[in-house]
C-alpha cells in the first residue's frame, strides 16, 4: 500500500519531469506561439508544485501572473512583431 507522503513526493517528481519536458520544448521551438504555449504548460506545472510545497500565497500570486499575464503579454508582443524565430545563416540555435 502506497503511503500518503510517498504519493505527494511522487506527484512532485512527476511535476518536475513534466516541467523539464515543457521547458526543453519551449526553448527549442521555432514557432514562437507554440513556445509560449509550452511555457504556459511549464507555468501550470509550477503552480501545482507551489501548491504541493505548501505555499498558498505563492500559488495565488503565481496563477494570475504566470498562467494569465505572461503568455498574454508575450502573445501581444508576437502579434505586433514577428511569429517565427527565423533562420539566418544556418542558425536556429539547437539545430547544429
Amino acid at each position, binding site marked *: 500500500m502506497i*503511503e*500518503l*507522503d*510517498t504519493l*505527494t*513526493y*511522487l506527484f*512532485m*517528481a512527476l*511535476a*518536475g*519531469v513534466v*516541467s*523539464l519536458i515543457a*521547458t*526543453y520544448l*519551449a*526553448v527549442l521551438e521555432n514557432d*514562437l506561439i507554440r*513556445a*509560449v504555449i509550452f*511555457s504556459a504548460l*511549464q*507555468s501550470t506545472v*509550477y503552480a501545482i*508544485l*507551489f501548491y504541493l*510545497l*505548501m*505555499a*498558498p*500565497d*505563492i500559488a495565488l*500570486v*503565481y496563477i494570475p*501572473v*504566470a498562467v494569465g*499575464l*505572461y503568455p498574454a*503579454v*508575450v502573445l*501581444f*508582443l*508576437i502579434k*505586433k*512583431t*514577428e511569429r517565427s*524565430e*527565423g533562420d*539566418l*545563416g544556418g*542558425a536556429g*540555435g*539547437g539545430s547544429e
Partner: protein
Amino acid sequence: MSELNTFLFNILLFSLFFNVGISLYGIFARPSLIKKIIALTIFSDTANVLAIAVGYRGWPSPSQPPIPPVITTTEPSIDDLTWFARQAVDPLPQALVLTAIVIGLAVTLFLVFLTLQVYRLYGTTDVRRVARLRG
C-alpha cells in the same frame, strides 16, 4: 520508505537544475529577443521554485503533512504556537519569492516594451540582424 521519498524529491530538484541549464541556454544562444524573454521568465520561475523547495520540510509523520505558514485561529495559546512552529514550512523564502514574482513581471513588461521599440526602429527582433545594422 524514506529513501524512496528522498529519491522522488531528488528527481524534482535535479529537474529544476536542468531547467535552469536549458533556460540559460535559451537566454544566451537563441537569436530571437522574444525567445530570450520567454527563457528569462522560465529561468526566474525556476529559481523561485528552488527557493520554495529549500524552505520545505519533511513530513512529521507519514500521515501528517507539513502545514502552510498560516495560523488558523486568531487567539492561539502557547501550545498551539509551539505545535505550529514544529509543523509549518519556512515562511521566509515564500515572502521573498512573493515580491520577486510581481517585480519580475514588471521588469519583463519593461523588456517587452524595449523589444517592441527595437522592432519599430530596426524591423526585426533577431539579434544577429540587429548586430549587422549600422547606426
